[in-house]
C-alpha cells in the first residue's frame, strides 16, 4: 500500500514536473535567428526586435554571420537545412524567398498577415516578393532605395556646374568637374558596385518600363536592343570619369571621397547615408541626396526580409508568429530604419523622426508605386534568381573593366547571360 502511494506520488511529481517544463517551454521558446546585421547601427536596431520578442516571453538566440551581403550566411543556411536543423528565422530576400518556398521548408505566415492586415499596409509590388504560391512566407523589414546619387554641393559650386538631372547632361558636368581638379564619380570597382551603377543608368536612360522588361522580365529583344546599347555606352562614359584607383575600392571609401570633397558624386543605395551621418554631415547642407540622373520618377527597391523555417515545436511556431508581428509593428519599423538609412516597408507611417532624404524616399516610393515605376533592384538580388543575376553581373563588371568591349557585344552577351538558369 505504502509502496503504491509512493509510486503514485512519484508519478504525480513526474507528471507535474513534465507539465511544468511544458509550461516554461511556452515561456521560453528559443528562436534562432540567422542574419547579417552586424554593423553597429544595424545591430542596435535588430536588438530592438530581440527586446520586443523577449517581452512576449520568447528567447532570441542570435546567429549572426557577416560577409559579402549575406554570402556566408547563405552557406550556413544551406548546411543547416541539409543537416535537418534549420534556424527558426533567417534573413532572405527577393526571388530566393520563392526558391526556398519551392523546397517546401518555409512556414506559412498567412494567419499573422491576415491578423495584421498586411495586404493593406504593403504595396502590391512588395507583397508579391513576400509571397510564395500566393501565401505569405516572408516579412519585410525595410525598403532601401538603390537609385540614389550622393553629391557634394561644394564641389559642384567650385566647378561651376549644376547637378545633372539627366544622363545627357552628365558628360558636360563631369568634364567641368574634372577640369576643376575633382574626381567626378566616386566609385568602388567591385562587381556589385559596378552592377549598382549599371542598373541606375538603365533606369535613367530607358525608364522604368524598359528596366522592367530588360532586367526583371529578361526579354531577349529588349536586352539586345538599341536602348541597352545606349545604356552600355553611357556606362562606359561614367567609367571615364572615375579615378584610376577605383578598382576594388570598398563602397564606404568611395563615400568618404564625397565627404572629404575629393569627389563630386556617387551612385549608391541609401545605406550610404550612415557614412555621412557618422561623419557629422547633414543632408541638404553638406551633402545632397537626389535620384540618379533621369530616374526621379522611378524607384529601384531593395527590401530586407525575414523568413520562418518550418519547425516541429509548437512553442517555436508561436514564437515565429510573434516575431513576424513584431517586425511589422510601427515601433520596430521606425527604430530599425532610422538607423539603417532605409524607410519602413509599411506605408502611411509617421515619418517625423526621419531626415529629408528618407522623407523624399518615402514620397517617391508611394508615387512610383502608383505610377507603376516601382521596380526591384537586380544588383541587390531582388529581381531575378541568383544564378541569372550573377551571370549578368559578370558581363557588366567585365564590360566595365575592359576598355575595348563594344556596347553592342556587351548587350549581346548580357542577353545570353540572362538565359542562365
Amino acid at each position, binding site marked *: 500500500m505504502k509502496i503504491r502511494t509512493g509510486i503514485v506520488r512519484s508519478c504525480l511529481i513526474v507528471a507535474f514536473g513534465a507539465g511544468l517544463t511544458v509550461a516554461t517551454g511556452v515561456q521560453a521558446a528559443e528562436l534562432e535567428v540567422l542574419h547579417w546585421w552586424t554593423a553597429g547601427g544595424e545591430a542596435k536596431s535588430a536588438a530592438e526586435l530581440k527586446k520586443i520578442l523577449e517581452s512576449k516571453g520568447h528567447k532570441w538566440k542570435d546567429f549572426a554571420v557577416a560577409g*559579402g551581403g549575406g*554570402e556566408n550566411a*547563405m*552557406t550556413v543556411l*544551406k548546411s543547416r*537545412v*541539409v543537416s535537418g536543423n534549420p534556424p527558426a528565422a533567417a534573413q532572405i530576400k527577393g526571388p*530566393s524567398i520563392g*526558391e*526556398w518556398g519551392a*523546397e517546401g521548408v518555409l512556414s506559412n505566415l498567412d494567419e499573422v498577415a491576415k491578423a495584421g492586415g498586411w495586404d493593406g499596409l504593403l504595396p502590391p509590388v512588395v507583397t508579391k516578393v513576400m509571397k510564395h504560391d500566393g501565401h505569405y512566407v516572408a516579412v519585410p523589414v525595410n525598403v532601401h532605395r538603390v537609385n540614389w546619387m550622393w553629391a557634394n554641393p561644394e564641389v559642384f559650386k567650385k566647378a561651376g556646374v549644376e547637378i545633372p538631372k539627366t544622363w545627357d547632361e552628365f558628360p558636360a558636368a563631369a568634364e567641368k568637374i574634372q577640369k576643376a581638379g575633382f574626381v567626378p564619380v566616386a566609385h568602388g*570597382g*567591385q*562587381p556589385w558596385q*559596378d552592377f549598382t551603377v549599371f542598373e541606375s543608368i538603365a533606369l535613367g536612360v530607358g525608364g522604368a518600363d524598359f528596366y522592367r522588361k530588360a532586367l526583371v522580365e529578361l526579354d531577349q529583344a529588349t536586352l539586345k536592343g538599341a536602348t541597352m546599347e545606349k545604356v552600355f555606352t553611357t556606362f562606359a562614359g561614367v567609367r571615364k570619369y572615375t579615378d*584610376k*584607383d*577605383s*578598382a*576594388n*575600392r570598398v563602397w564606404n*571609401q568611395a563615400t568618404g571621397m564625397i565627404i572629404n570633397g575629393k569627389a563630386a558624386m556617387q551612385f549608391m543605395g541609401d545605406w550610404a547615408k550612415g557614412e555621412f551621418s557618422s561623419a557629422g554631415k547633414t543632408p541638404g547642407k553638406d551633402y545632397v541626396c537626389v535620384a540618379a540622373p533621369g530616374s526621379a520618377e522611378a524607384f529601384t527597391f531593395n527590401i530586407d526580409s525575414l523568413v520562418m523555417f518550418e519547425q516541429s515545436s509548437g512553442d517555436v511556431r508561436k514564437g515565429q508568429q510573434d516575431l513576424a508581428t513584431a517586425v511589422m509593428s510601427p515601433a520596430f519599423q521606425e527604430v530599425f530604419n532610422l538607423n539603417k538609412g532605409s524607410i519602413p516597408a509599411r506605408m502611411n507611417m509617421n515619418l517625423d523622426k526621419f531626415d529629408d532624404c528618407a522623407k523624399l524616399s518615402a514620397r517617391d516610393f508611394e508615387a512610383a508605386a502608383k505610377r507603376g515605376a516601382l521596380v526591384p533592384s537586380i544588383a541587390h538580388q531582388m529581381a531575378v*534568381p*541568383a*544564378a541569372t543575376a*550573377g*551571370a549578368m553581373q*559578370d558581363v557588366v*563588371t*567585365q564590360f*566595365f*573593366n*575592359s576598355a575595348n568591349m563594344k556596347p553592342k557585344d556587351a548587350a549581346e552577351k548580357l542577353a545570353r547571360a540572362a538565359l542562365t538558369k
Partner: protein
Amino acid sequence: MDLTAQRVTLAGDAGAGAEAKPRLADRIDAWLPKIVLAPTFVCALVFIYGYILWTAVLSVTPSRMLPKYEFAGIVQYEALFGNERWWLALKNLALFGGTFVLVCLAVGLLLAILLDQKIRGEGFIRSIYLYPMALSFIVTGTAWKWILNPELGIERLLHDWGFENARFDWLIDPEMAIYTVVVAAVWQSSGFVMALFLAGLRGIDDSIIKAAQVDGASMPTIYRRIIIPSLRPVFFSSFMILTHIAVKSFDLVMALTNGGPGFASDVPATFMYAFAFTRNQIGLGAASAMMMLMIVVAVIVPFMYSELRRPRNG
C-alpha cells in the same frame, strides 16, 4: 631509405611468425595494427572519398539551391566549359600556383641558408619569419589590402616621400591583381618553408662538407653540388605542402581581392564557392569541384609516385 625495405621484410616476418604460433594473444597482436588504423581508414573512405563520390554524383544532376538527385547528363560540365570565368580561374590558378610555389621555395631556401651562417639573434629573426603562419587571413587580409592599396599604402607612402611618379597598383590592375595574392601568400607561407629547409640543413652531416672544403671546393660550389641536392626530400615535402596551400587558397583571395577587379583574380576555389553557395548552382559548383580534384590528381600523383619510388629503387 633502404631502412624502408628492411622494415617491409620485418613486417612480413612478423606476419609469418604469427602464423607459426597461432596463440590468441598473438593473433590479436597481429591484427592490432590494422584495427588501430581502421578508424582512420574508414574516415578517409567516408569523409574524403565518399564525399568525392557524392560530389561526382551531384555534378551530373540539375541541382540548384539544394541537392536534387536526378540524372541530367553532362550539362553542368558543358556549362562549365562554356564559362569564361572558369577558364580565367584556371589560368589564375596556374599563374598563382606556379609563381607562389617557386617563389616560396626560392625565398625559403635563401632565408634558410642565410640563417644558417651562425647569425646572432637567429631565434628572434626566425620567429619573425615564422609568425605569419600563425595568423589567418581573416586577420591579416585587411592589413594587406591597405598596404597594397594605392590610395592608402605603399604607393601613397612613396608619394609622401617625394617619389611622385612611383606606381604600385597591382591590386587594382586586372592583369596584375593575382600577383598581389602571391605577395601575401608568400608572406604567409615562406617562413614555414624556411623552417623546413633550415631543419634540412641542420640535418646534413658536417663531415661531408669538411671533406669537400679540404678538397678545395668553394662555399657556393659546396652548396650547389652537395648541400642543395641533399635537400631533395625537403623540396618534396615543401612542394606537397605548397601545392596543397595553392589549390585550396580561398580565404586569401576572398580577403585580399574578393576575386576582383571584376573577376580578374578568381581562382577555382572561389569560383566553386560562388556558384555552389551564392548563386544557387550546386550542380555547376560540383562540376567545378570535380575538375579541381582531377587537376590535383593529375599534378600530384605522378609526382608523388616518382618521388616515393625513386630512393627505394636507388
